[in-house]
């Protein structure tokens, strides 16, 4: 049996119009030092009491996750895998700032416990009551590629049928300033959330696309040779990704979402998403079903 891995559904909340693909007809031009997501009205998704207890990144993760689960008719996935470059940076700052200013007595235990990188992935599991495999990756710009690779492994090796894979990053004023100092110039810094539902099978005609390959290359000199090896109809690189979604730790996840939707819309038969935003490079090769 030749089981292939498919992206069945994908959803995003980003600097483009959220939870839809309409933005693809006329993408927003990005400007400014940094951009927050265009958030949907969360009152349609959460009760006021639920909403009060949730940070924005978790709301985005929950809404995008639920959307892809519903679209795929899956209640509880076999695995939940999450990528985040900076983690829960807002809660990290909420704890770090008073700590550095000597205000030990004002430290919030909630900010601390919701500042670890696995907060989003585990909160999604708690909300879904999902006891399956659960992991979180944090490898700067290739956090999503790590997530996708693990999703493929879960489907290939661990017998998972459905995997919920996501990438979630948020930005704050302070972090945008620090990032600008680290990587000056270029597209605005940004944030974004993307969720995908992946399944394995011999054939899934309704899927958006097939995930043919995922690689993380740590040796940058090997990238162009690898790119040439794929003979992709369209190669989507960082300049396109960043012009659409801004510079964001989860940008490659958003790029894969966009590529999957382009393939599903019949624009290309194959897309290679090449991500060279940090010290490592990510390659994701998608093909039409």
């Amino acid at each position, binding site marked *: 049996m030749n089981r292939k891995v498919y992206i069945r559904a994908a959803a995003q909340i980003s600097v483009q119009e959220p939870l839809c693909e309409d933005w693809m007809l006329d993408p927003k031009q990005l400007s400014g030092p940094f951009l927050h997501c265009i958030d949907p009205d969360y009152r349609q998704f959460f009760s006021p009491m639920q909403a009060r207890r949730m940070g924005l990144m978790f709301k985005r993760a929950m809404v995008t996750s639920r959307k892809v689960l519903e679209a795929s008719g899956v209640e509880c996935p076999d695995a939940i895998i999450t990528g985040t470059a900076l983690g829960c940076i807002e809660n990290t700052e909420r704890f770090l700032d008073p700590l550095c200013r000597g205000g030990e007595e004002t430290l919030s235990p909630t900010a601390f416990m919701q*500042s670890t990188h696995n907060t989003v*992935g585990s909160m999604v599991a708690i909300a879904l009551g999902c006891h399956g495999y659960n992991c979180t990756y944090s490898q*700067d710009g290739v956090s999503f590629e790590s997530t996708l690779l693990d999703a493929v492994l879960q489907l290939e090796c661990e017998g998972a049928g459905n995997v919920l894979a996501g990438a979630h990053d948020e930005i704050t004023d*302070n972090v945008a300033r*620090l990032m600008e100092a680290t990587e000056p110039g270029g597209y605005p810094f940004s944030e974004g959330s993307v969720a995908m539902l992946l399944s394995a099978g011999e054939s899934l005609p309704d899927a958006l696309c097939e995930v043919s390959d995922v690689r993380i290359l740590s040796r940058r000199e090997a990238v162009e040779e690898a790119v040439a090896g794929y003979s992709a109809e369209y190669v989507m690189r960082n300049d396109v990704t960043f012009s659409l979604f801004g510079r964001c730790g989860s940008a490659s996840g958003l790029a894969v979402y966009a590529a999957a939707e382009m393939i599903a819309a019949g624009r290309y038969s194959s897309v290679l998403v090449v991500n060279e935003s940090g010290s490592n490079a990510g390659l994701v090769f998608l093909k039409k079903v």
Partner: protein
Amino acid sequence: MVDGIVITGAGIVSAIGVGKDETLRSLLARRSGLPGGKVGLSDLQMKTILGIPGEETVARSSLLGILAVKEALQEAGISYTGTAVLVSGTTVGGMDITEEHYLEMLGGEHPELFRFHTCGSSTDRIAAYFGGFGSLTTTSTACSSAANSIIFGANLIRSGRFDVVVAGGSECLTRYHTAGFDSLMILDKEPCRPFDASRAGLNLGEGAGFIVLESSAHASSRGARVLGRLDGWGNACDAFHQTASSPDGEGAFLAMTKALEMAGLRPEDIDYINAHGTGTVNNDESESKAMTRLFGGCVPPVSSTKSFTGHTTSASGGIEAVICLLAMEYGFIPANLGWKEPSEGCIKPESEGRSKVFLQHVLCNSFAFGGNDSSLLISNARDYE
């Protein structure tokens, strides 16, 4: 799919020693590194040992990681890492640098130091020391990060994608997570006492533990000495609460059960469990419940070596996997220091430890915030004679 994953190298650094030899001596002599939990080398001392210029900014988690990866690679006899994968687990990443310079950075002084903040940058620096790896990534599931690195690494090999993966985790003590655990009121100022009636919390520790994973075929083709086999693993989510473990230990139970099923073993085949055993009231009770559910009245010998090293959080799964390998190679069960009195709802650990035992199969547990629970099943390279 590749059958058989073996361990051909191991490296460890913690409060009880730098390297396997010193760690072994401390374990056998019951010499604890608590309550401090600190590795006895300054950043500068580590840089000197490693030949890294003293003025270079390097996260402490990277330095600890380099020490452990170096030992693991040396033992495995691997000098070229360009086709291997590095999978590290960390949560702190470069927080030691961030917290030292945070206010200055916000004030515009050396804001570029922020690039050391991320978990990924900590792993990048470890890889760079060895001239780079072919591929790398970082898991960050809080206190089970290293165990999940090992699971991901094993699947990379199992799928046939790579022959050699160096996997584990690294974490250094920071004010950030010390204050964090303190705010949750689960730190004990005295040495921790896992599973004891008087236990009152955990001690934080630091360090790194990495193992070299190889397909069995690759290891034998190059004549590598096999230290142990990774025969099974389980990762499950407790899906109960962000920081508390469920009263029935569901995540822990599922993780251990999956590991046994994958290895095709029965509960009675397990000779030792290196417990997560943090020493908090909640964890030890929940983990005990999970063990009792799985093993019934015949729970194998259990100890928590966090009573030696402290809770090394993201590194703990790597450090404790290496301790399990030492226990198998030298035939002993590490003590569970500080245990005096049985606790209602808790298993009774091996307080004194045991010597002259043969351990065929062991479980190594790592649980985390968010209910990210994982268990590794490691088997002895030799069969009982």
